């Protein structure tokens, strides 16, 4: 039963692979037959020559038998393909200019698309390396309502993680982790590197065996203090420890603790964030997860969550104060995501109630409606990815449009070429080449060009992806190895599509039409055929580039608007200093003295306007201190309110203006009446229409807390992403809260970035022991907000300009071609007395007509599609007239330019030459 198809396959394969041998065999067999037949006839008395002739007649046409046999073997197709390829290569080599133009154009179009796709792939589809069964793993996000609007957040408290693990039954595994940059190493070697604080259960999510030693166990990861053990990453082990096996048992300083190395992760293991091994591209390092400065994309070590947390606070697992962990869960087999989500939500609500028991000012369940959302592991699929998450798709769409423009260009070029070859094609058709065969051959040419373009595109795509990764920066983590297998497949698919589309154009053109007319065709025709197809292509290009440019213009305006927003603080002239004591124990008095010395030293440096101590992490504290205001029953409902604990001089150092009253200053000492400064937005929310100065706010939530009096109202600040809703902040005096400072704000004259190194050197000299200071411009900490608009503007503009250039080239080539075709006619016109201006006008009108029609269609397209673009814009209508008219003007200008060269050439035609030429 099975024998027959198998035998067929073997024989067919042989026919393909050893086709020469097979052909020779057939030839020998037929010759033998002829010999025997001739012999038979000769023995019957027929003379030799006759006998051979009759034998041949009896057999029938030898070539036909061979052909039939070949057909039966099914190799005819392959033969044709081989021939077509050879012919295509030969023909293309004859016109290197055309070939190069096509390959470069296609390369640019395919490359842009492939590059964007690889970024999207990494963001949205790639699971962490070596993860077992990624389909059953999800990330958890909490969602609750605040003032009627849902808030989504991916960071959880440790106790919450315990609650969710204990009180659900749908999961075979849960894990919590947080990657951050911590100081690794001691003394001179101390550098900030990405370290993953991960629960022991993290390792069980992966099919990974340690390369050396072992992973830590849940026993070593219990609150209140986990074991101080660490697992190194493979690259770090290789680079820092030379891959030596005696690294086990030695200690490594991470943050404030000393950890014993117990194992090394296998090669390729990067933990819970997707990505191949870390790498840098041309100096542009790819960015880590927590909005910190550039660094490696995968952790150098894993330490138990409870080990790190226990060092920072003995009570971290007892309360819900500190939300810093990502939670990842694996559903049990057979559990649907819906059921898992419901299970988690129930557990979360129970946990919320437990938190309320400790913190009565927390909003009740019916108000906040807390629930859990599950999303796939790639970070781009987070429910709160928001606008940033959508930008890659928009850029992808734009890249696709550019690709279409490029393909249209190529199709036009190929059409022109087919037109030029129409005599040759007509001849071949007349000689009997089948239409199908001819079509195949033209298609092969198109595909060959497309493949060459595709390979070029792959290289360009790699460059594009690197550039994009560099731009994207802090919002999204990207690993190395940007061109993965999926991107290559995508590239191949796109190449095939484009090859078919552009190859078909000349095919459709060439195999229709009147053979006789084509054979007789020559330049000496009375009129010439305007190629409608080419005109249509150029109009398409014009329309698409117009639409793209309108999009680009809108984005650029949005970006300009965003930049013009008053941030409420001054990033350019401030430098931030962070102390890192590295576990050095200082008494309160010693710490205060150190801070004072640092502040004084900084303030005395040339170019420094002032220095003030930093007590809160800038713009990053929701410290959960309940607020209550007499006369308002639930302040929480009006929140969230961001707290900044500040020293005197803060407002001047950071550049936040005080609109009424006074800033926190040195009168707000410990023991003096409690003061608070609120932002204008907070004042508006709590006491609408009233003067906030003098009002009472109880910080601490209970009714017996003494009042903090509002002494000043500060301007609003934007720290959490651009939106139309202002943020509400309040400021408390560091002295009155008895909180130690851990850094400085230094206000300088000139650019903050210029002062980073001098400040660091001056202050590092004052630091005791292993402690060190980290200095960075303020802008480094808060730059993220504008980014998505910047990216949108850049990408849209770059691709829009590319599309415009391609369209311009398209217009130019069509007009130039038309002029070349009409040389004879132009010669006649000149001979009859036409002036240069008339001719130039003639050609320009030709070009303008194409350009204006394209532009018109493009603008209509842009206006229609604008609806979808508007959520991505800021304070710009998608029908902004300035942008639309501006783009229209640009396109008309470019069209004129593109037509100008052929127009000038038309004017300089020598009628003698033109009239005599054929």
């Amino acid at each position, binding site marked *: 039963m099975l024998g*027959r198809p198998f*035998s067929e396959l073997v024989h*067919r394969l042989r026919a393909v692979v050893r086709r020469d041998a097979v052909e020779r*065999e057939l030839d020998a067999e037929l010759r*033998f*037959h002829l010999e*025997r*037949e001739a012999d038979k006839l000769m023995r019957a008395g027929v003379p030799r020559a006759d006998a051979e002739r009759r034998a041949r007649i009896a*057999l029938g046409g030898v070539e036909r*038998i061979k052909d039939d046999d070949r057909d039966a073997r099914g190799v005819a197709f392959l033969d044709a393909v081989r021939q077509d390829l050879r012919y295509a290569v030969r023909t293309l080599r004859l016109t290197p200019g055309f070939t190069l133009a096509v390959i470069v154009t296609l390369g640019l179009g395919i490359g842009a698309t492939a590059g964007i796709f690889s970024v999207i792939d990494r963001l949205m589809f790639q699971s962490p390396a070596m993860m077992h069964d990624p389909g059953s793993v999800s990330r958890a996000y909490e969602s609750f309502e605040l003032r009627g609007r849902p808030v989504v957040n991916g960071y959880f408290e440790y106790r919450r993680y315990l609650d969710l693990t204990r009180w659900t039954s749908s999961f075979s595994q849960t894990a919590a982790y947080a990657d951050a940059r911590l100081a690794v190493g001691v003394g001179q070697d101390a550098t900030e590197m990405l370290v993953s604080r991960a629960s022991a259960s993290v390792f069980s999510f992966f099919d990974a065996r340690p390369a050396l030693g072992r992973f830590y166990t849940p026993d070593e990861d219990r609150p209140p203090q986990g074991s101080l053990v660490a697992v190194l990453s493979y690259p770090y082990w290789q680079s820092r420890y030379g891959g030596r096996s005696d690294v086990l048992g030695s200690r490594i300083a991470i943050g404030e603790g000393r950890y014993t190395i117990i194992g090394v992760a296998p090669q390729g293991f990067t933990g819970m964030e997707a990505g191949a091994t870390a790498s840098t591209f041309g100096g542009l390092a790819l960015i880590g997860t927590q909005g910190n400065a550039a660094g490696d994309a995968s952790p150098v070590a894993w330490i138990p969550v409870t080990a790190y947390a226990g060092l920072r606070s003995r009570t971290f697992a007892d309360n819900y104060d500190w939300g810093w962990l990502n939670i990842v869960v694996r559903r049990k087999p057979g559990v649907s995501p819906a059921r898992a989500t419901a299970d988690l939500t129930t557990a979360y609500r129970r946990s919320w109630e437990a938190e309320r028991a400790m913190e009565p000012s927390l909003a009740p369940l019916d108000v906040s409606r807390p629930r859990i959302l599950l999303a796939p592991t790639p970070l781009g699929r987070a429910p709160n990815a928001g606008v940033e998450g959508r930008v890659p798709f928009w850029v992808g769409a734009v890249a696709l449009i550019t690709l279409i423009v490029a393909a249209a260009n190529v199709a036009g070029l190929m059409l022109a070429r087919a037109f030029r070859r129409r005599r040759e094609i007509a001849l071949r058709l007349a000689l009997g080449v089948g239409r199908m065969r001819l079509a195949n051959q033209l298609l092969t040419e198109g595909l060959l060009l497309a493949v060459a373009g595709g390979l070029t595109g792959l290289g360009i795509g790699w460059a594009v992806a690197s550039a994009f990764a560099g731009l994207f920066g802090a919002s999204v983590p990207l690993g190395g190895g940007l061109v993965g297998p999926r991107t290559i497949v995508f590239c191949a698919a796109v190449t095939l599509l484009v090859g078919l589309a552009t190859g078909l154009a000349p095919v459709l053109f060439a195999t229709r039409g009147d053979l006789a007319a084509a054979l007789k065709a020559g330049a000496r025709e009375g009129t010439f055929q305007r190629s409608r197809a080419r005109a249509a292509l150029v109009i398409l290009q014009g329309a698409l580039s117009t639409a793209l440019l309108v999009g680009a213009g809108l984005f650029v305006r949005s970006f300009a608007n965003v930049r013009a927003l008053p941030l409420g603080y001054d990033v350019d002239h401030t430098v931030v200093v962070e102390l890192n004591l590295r576990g050095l124990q200082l008494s309160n008095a010693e710490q205060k003295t150190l801070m004072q010395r640092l502040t004084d030293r900084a303030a005395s440096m040339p170019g420094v306007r002032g220095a003030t101590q930093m007590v809160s992490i800038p713009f990053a504290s929701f410290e959960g201190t309940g607020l209550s205001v007499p006369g308002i029953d639930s302040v929480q409902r009006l929140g969230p309110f961001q707290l900044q604990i500040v020293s005197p001089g803060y407002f001047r150092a950071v550049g936040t203006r005080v609109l009424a009253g006074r800033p926190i200053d040195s009168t707000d000492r410990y023991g003096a009446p409690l003061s608070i400064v609120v932002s204008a937005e907070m004042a508006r929310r709590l006491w609408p229409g009233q003067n906030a100065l003098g009002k009472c706010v109880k910080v601490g939530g209970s009714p017996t807390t003494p009042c903090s009096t509002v002494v000043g109202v500060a301007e609003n600040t934007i720290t959490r992403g651009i939106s139309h809703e202002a943020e509400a902040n309040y400021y408390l005096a560091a002295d009155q809260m008895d909180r130690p400072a851990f850094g400085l704000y230094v206000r300088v004259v000139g650019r903050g970035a210029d002062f980073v190194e001098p400040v660091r050197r001056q202050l590092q000299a004052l630091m005791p022991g292993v402690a060190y200071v980290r200095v960075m411009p303020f802008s480094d900490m808060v730059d993220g907000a504008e980014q998505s608009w910047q990216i949108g503007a850049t990408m849209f503009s770059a691709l829009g300009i590319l599309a415009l250039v391609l369209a311009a080239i398209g217009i130019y080539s069509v007009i130039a071609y038309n002029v070349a075709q009409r040389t004879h006619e132009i010669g006649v016109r000149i001979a009859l007395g036409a002036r240069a201006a008339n001719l130039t006008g003639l050609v320009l009108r030709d070009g303008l007509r194409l350009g204006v029609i394209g532009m018109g269609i493009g603008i209509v397209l842009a206006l229609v599609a604008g609806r979808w673009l508007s959520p991505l814009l800021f304070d710009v209508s998608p029908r902004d007239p300035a942008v639309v008219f501006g783009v229209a003007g640009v396109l008309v200008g470019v069209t004129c330019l593109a037509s100008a060269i052929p127009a000038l050439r038309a004017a300089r035609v020598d009628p003698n030459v033109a009239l005599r030429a054929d």
Partner: protein
Amino acid sequence: MPTSQADLLPGTLDLLILKALSLQPQHGWAISERLRQVSRAMLDVPQGSLYPALHRLERRGWIKASWGPSDNNRHAKFYELTRAGRKQLGAEVDAWQKLTTAVSLVLEMQ
């Protein structure tokens, strides 16, 4: 010269070849000669279609080929029936007999 020749029904060429080979392995020319002789020249197998048919049968695994010396010491491609081929021959003979019986029955009807 044969005056009247029967046209081969499509598919019967395979049957004839298989039968010819069931007696002994032969090369292509010998098969063609044999068929002519045995059918008393009423069957003139068009020699041109013989070889594609032989190769087709070879692909299907019903006959297998090997090169060897012929009776006049020249190199020739010999075909012989495989076991699967023998089974196929039996099946085709059955089918043929059924067909002819059926046709005869129809022709005898009044």
